[in-house]
């Protein structure tokens, strides 16, 4: 545990001493802010139109839910941006250790591979949580301007969904990083992999059968969508945790293989 903490602190320190982290945070906030502004403006327009209808034709006001019109699409958008960010977050974790030779230090120090894997996983996850947490400010703004305020239940389940998304995809990105010496190649392959997992269940739209339903199950987006709607299923949580387990196992194997394959 102590060793994990030592390596974790170093990894976090590396993140905050690197420009990429700040650029990533800035881009993330800019894009999510832009999306939030547009979605919320559209919602405001819908609300004012509904009011006009009510006064003009004296019809009852349709239910205008900020959760339905703003938060749900907003979470789907954050999830897509997270798919872009996670590869950037994970790309350097192992590939730079290999290309700069520092893997030699880690592998000849009295520490276990498991400790390296967990420390790197937790450090990337911590940064991811920080990124995600910044978007709470948009929920607060929305809550301030709506009456009687937003329903916080689906908001928290949406965040739980984003956390699960991170838990499932960060290990996969780190696994790709452990295979590559070049971080640029790592970022592209990780991104391709995550994008594939996000869209793979589209195939269920046009076909049916065992393979199709299997692909439907391994798709990320459907499992995440349940969380964003405020529905927490055990099966979705099991899905994300299984994906994480596979990723962690593969990363561990891959780092172990450095020892006999050479760096």
């Amino acid at each position, binding site marked *: 545990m102590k060793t994990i903490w*030592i390596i974790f602190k*170093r990894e976090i320190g590396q993140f905050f001493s690197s420009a990429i982290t700040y650029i990533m945070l800035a881009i993330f906030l800019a894009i999510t802010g832009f999306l939030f502004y547009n979605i919320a403006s559209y919602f405001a327009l819908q609300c004012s139109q509904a009011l006009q209808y009510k006064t003009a034709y004296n019809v009852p006001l349709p239910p205008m839910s900020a959760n339905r019109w703003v938060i749900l699409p907003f979470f789907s958008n954050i999830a897509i941006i997270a798919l872009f960010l996670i590869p950037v977050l994970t790309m350097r974790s192992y590939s730079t250790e290999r290309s700069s030779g520092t893997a030699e230090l880690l592998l000849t120090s009295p520490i276990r591979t498991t400790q390296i894997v967990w420390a790197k996983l937790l450090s990337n996850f911590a940064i991811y949580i920080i990124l995600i947490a910044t978007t709470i400010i948009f929920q607060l703004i929305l809550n301030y301007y709506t009456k009687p305020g937003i329903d916080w239940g689906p908001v928290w389940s949406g965040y739980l969904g984003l956390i699960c998304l991170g838990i499932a995809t960060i290990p996969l990105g780190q696994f790709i990083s452990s295979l590559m010496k070049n971080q640029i190649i790592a970022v592209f392959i990780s991104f391709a992999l995550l994008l594939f997992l996000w869209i793979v269940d589209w195939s269920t739209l046009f076909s049916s059968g065992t393979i199709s339903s299997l692909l439907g199950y391994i798709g990320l987006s459907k499992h995440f969508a349940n969380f964003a709607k405020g529905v927490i299923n055990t099966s979705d949580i099991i899905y994300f945790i299984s994906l994480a387990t596979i990723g962690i196992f593969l990363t561990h194997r891959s780092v172990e293989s450095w020892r006999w394959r050479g760096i």
Partner: protein
Amino acid sequence: MAGIQVKNLVKYYGKFKALDNISFEVEQGEILGLLGPNGAGKTTTMRILTTFLPPSDGTAIIDGFDITEKPSQVRKIIGYMPENPPLYNDMKVCKFLKFVAKLKNVSSKKIAEKLEYVENVCKLEDVWNNYIMHISKGYRQRVGFASAIIADPAVLIFDEPTIGLDPKQIKYTREIIKNLGGDHTVILSTHILPEAEMTCDRVAIINRGKILAIGSPTELAQKIRKVDAVRVEMTGPSNEVKNTLLELDGVIHIIPQERHSVFLVEFEPKWKTREQITKAALEHNWSILELTPVEASLEDVFLEIVSTQEKSL
């Protein structure tokens, strides 16, 4: 049992045999130099000893622990400095060394003391608070050296420790390594012959994955010396001197040197040639200005041994 026993190490990279049945022993407190040309297998040997690479066959026992069976125990007692020191460029020198000390289980009470020790020994005061990416090659080398010795391990392994240093630093680093011997078992690799001669108690000459000779620098020199040689300068006319020397028993060659009155006389070791030379000088009434035995240097030994192997291949 302390020290290092290397037993029949074999290492393949694909089909290429990098190490071919290497065996040697290092006593506790001894400094062993691995001497060989580039690509001889020095780094591979060291990487196997530090458990960074597994051997294809054979093993080594370090301080009683088998590197293939108890690698985690071995990692606790070794300090390793690879040829390119593994440093995190985005860290400050002091932060990096603190990180390494913690990684190597230096207790939190002792960390400050150890940091001060390596700062002084490795002369890192000037760059102590600099980022590693901004320091020069020589300093990087010294930080790498500091990270190897910071946890005070029983066994130290240095891969080309003086590469990239200026002459003054080279001299200083050699002195540090020499001082580390005695308390520590040290293996260092080099392709610089005087370095091996100066710092090491024993030298193993390695080429093409094989150990060709092992022993103290003097032992190795004696081993290959087939002829003895002396430098002679006498006051007589040089032609006459040369002819007189040629007539002596056991003389093989007379090689004229930089000045015409100086000769290098090579002779078979069993003849007491120096005594003969003195007698001959007395007979001719010449004065001897110089009569120096010339010993084979490690360089001669190295070239001789390596070229013999290359010829036989």
